[in-house]
């Protein structure tokens, strides 16, 4: 199957000569959840900005649905309708004085009639749960609400692929949960997502496919379940192991947990633990002791 | 040096509006041409306008103990040139009237004339004339003279509207100018020094971007 988006050997140098991307190839399947993982400064933002044509590679090629990117004015407009980018800093993205006005910016630029723009704006605001705040001045929103307004602004253009640059940055636990719920809803409706982050726990829990970016090079692409096989290259890129994974490995090494497949969240890990371990009867304990084994299960602490 | 809403009688309000309108029109047309050639400057101009607004709302530490606000007239003229300053100042003054109740709509023409046309014009002229004496003296003179010009023009506008019962317009001008001189002359000096500090720091920070602006171009042509 043709991938939705494909990058082949991208290289990009800043005007001052510094290499931002050295060699990056990856391909994104339609309808998938993707995470771009990398340390700060690895080139995640630069790569995302290539994917909707804001930056043009020094060499290498980008394809959408198998067709090379067309950097003409019309080509870029068509590209950006299909691939939306949510910037890391909402203050850099929100242009209009009110939430609804900002969301209408993209659809209006598509040249749609006002009635359709209004309908799309309403739909996008509902999708991110901001309907009640539509007429609120942007500067009165909280950081989490601004973030969701940015997503609505991109969603209103009904793109096939949404790129999100560090969407969790600066959000507290409650806001993160809200945002992940929004992302899950979008994924369920068939929108492809590519999220850049340096949070391995979130990446491991949420993604279907992961791409590792290290110092401008795409050094790995793998399914989340294949994480353990990629340990060496991930560690080289400064990415720690997800807490749930290291814990599960330790537990299963000690024979305390077993699951048909690797748990990706703490809830899944807990499900892989045995239910309450029964204390062995006296006879058994004696038997165990005799064979030189300590009781396998420690007493529950008081 | 804003003249507040309703302070000027109707004929004066209309006259100053008529005096400022051509400059605003010309500045806007020029700006449109400039943005057509360099569309990336559109956002810069918008953000810079916001900067000018924020600048004019800052408290300036004053030598006399009281505090007042910088006009930014000189800095604006150095950064964007006197012509682009007219629409920028127009937006800033409109925002000040509508968001801060500072100045007004009926006095917009008069205020634009002093702060968007006369002040930046003199500041720019002073900078060009004194440039060969060195950057710091030229910047200082431009900012201080820009500030002083707005105040002299404002005093003149008030004198024309409220001539003295015995001494006429001239006496009224001496009166208004004399009263404001107490606070305004030290402030003009402070704004001059402040602008020098800004331009110095800016050169160390951001010499790259400065090259695009009148300030930087003047340096290069030297």
């Amino acid at each position: 199957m043709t991938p939705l988006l494909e990058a082949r050997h991208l290289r990009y140098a800043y005007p001052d000569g510094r290499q931002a991307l050295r060699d990056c190839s990856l391909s994104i399947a339609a309808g998938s959840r993707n995470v771009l993982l990398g340390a700060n400064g690895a080139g995640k933002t630069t790569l995302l900005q290539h994917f909707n044509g804001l930056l043009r590679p020094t060499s290498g090629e980008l394809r959408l649905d198998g067709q090379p990117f067309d950097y003409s004015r019309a080509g870029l407009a068509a590209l950006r309708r299909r691939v939306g980018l949510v910037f890391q800093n909402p203050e850099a993205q929100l242009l209009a004085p009110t939430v609804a006005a900002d969301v209408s910016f993209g659809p209006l630029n598509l040249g749609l009639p006002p009635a359709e723009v209004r309908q799309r704006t309403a739909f996008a605001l509902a999708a991110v749960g901001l309907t009640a705040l539509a007429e609120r001045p942007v500067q009165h929103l909280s950081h989490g609400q601004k973030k969701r307004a940015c997503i609505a602004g991109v969603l209103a253009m009904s793109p096939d692929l949404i790129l999100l640059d560090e969407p969790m940055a600066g959000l507290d636990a409650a806001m993160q949960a809200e945002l992940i719920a929004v992302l899950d809803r979008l994924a369920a409706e068939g929108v492809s997502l590519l999220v850049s982050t340096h949070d391995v726990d979130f990446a491991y829990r949420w993604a279907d496919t992961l791409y590792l970016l290290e110092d401008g090079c795409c050094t790995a692409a793998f399914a989340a379940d294949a994480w353990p096989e990629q340990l060496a290259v991930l560690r080289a890129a400064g990415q720690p192991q997800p807490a749930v994974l290291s814990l599960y490995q330790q537990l299963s090494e000690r024979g305390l947990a077993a699951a048909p497949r690797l748990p990706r969240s703490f809830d899944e890990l807990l499900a892989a633990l045995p239910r309450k371990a029964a204390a062995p009867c006296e006879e058994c304990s004696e038997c165990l002791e005799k064979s030189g084994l300590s009781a396998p299960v420690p007493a529950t602490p008081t | 040096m804003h003249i507040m809403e309703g302070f000027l009688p109707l004929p004066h309000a209309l006259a100053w509006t008529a005096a400022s309108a051509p400059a605003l029109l010309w500045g806007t047309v020029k700006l449109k041409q400039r943005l057509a050639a360099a569309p990336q400057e559109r956002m810069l101009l918008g953000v810079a306008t916001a900067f000018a607004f924020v600048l004019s709302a800052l408290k300036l530490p004053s030598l006399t103990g009281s505090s007042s606000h910088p006009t930014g007239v000189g800095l604006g003229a150095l950064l964007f040139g006197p012509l682009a300053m007219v629409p920028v100042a127009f937006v800033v003054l409109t925002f000040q009237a509508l968001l801060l109740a500072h100045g007004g709509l009926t006095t917009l023409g008069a205020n634009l004339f002093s702060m968007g046309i006369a002040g930046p014009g003199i500041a720019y002229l002073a900078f060009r004339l004194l440039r060969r004496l060195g950057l710091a003296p030229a910047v200082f003179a431009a900012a201080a003279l820009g500030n002083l010009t707005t105040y002299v023009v404002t005093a003149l506008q008030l004198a024309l509207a409220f001539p003295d019962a015995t001494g006429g317009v001239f006496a009224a001008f001496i009166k208004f100018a004399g009263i404001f001189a107490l606070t305004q002359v030290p402030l003009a000096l402070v704004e001059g020094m402040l602008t020098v500090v800004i331009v110095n720091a800016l050169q160390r920070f951001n010499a790259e971007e400065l090259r695009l602006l009148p300030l930087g171009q003047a340096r290069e042509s030297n």
Partner: protein
Amino acid sequence: MLIDSIAAQSRWRRVSPAAKTGFALAGLLAALLADSAPVTFGLALAFALITCYGAGVPARLWLRVACLPLGFLALGVLPLAFSWAPATGWHWAPDAGTRMAEVLGRAAAASTALLLLVLSTPLADLFDLLRRMRCPTVLLDVMHVAYRMLAVLSVSTADMQRAQAARLGHVSTWHSLRSLGLLLACLLCETWRRARDLERAAAARNGADGLRFLSATPAHPWRDASIALVASSALLAVVLGARL
């Protein structure tokens, strides 16, 4: 920006901006046309009452907003009390009373008329009106970006000032001046960064060549316009009647 946040919560937020602007402009004109102090003070009182009881702006907030321009006005008319001539020097102006009353009344009426508009209409609603009145796109774009960045740069400025105060940047006048210079230079650099970011963000949503936004439509534009027309005519009739 206290005024703008009051306007966002005003009871007249949904009233057609064109109607509100029309009435406020009629108010300004009436203030400039009125030629007797009682009429202008009456106008000022009327505008204040309409703002508080019509548009539902709490009187406490109205006072807080109004005290600055009205205080400024009180100081501003003082020079009119004195007269100066080379021969006589300073003395009381013979026409001080009438002139001060005239200016006080006119400026108070005009200021309160403008406050009626800005306390019931967020600035953003006026942009739509300006667009429909064919204001040049260049100016509108500058206004949109400036309005949005005003909030952002104000926050940056407040943060920077606090950070400098926390490290004793304001211990003396000279220190304050130097700190302010550093702050403004940084803010100016931020201006370039923000402009570049916005340029990119607009391009990402296909908006590289102009800012267009959909505006909320007022519920009853024609009803609002007719009420404003009637009220404006009445206002001007009263003022012109008093002149004759």
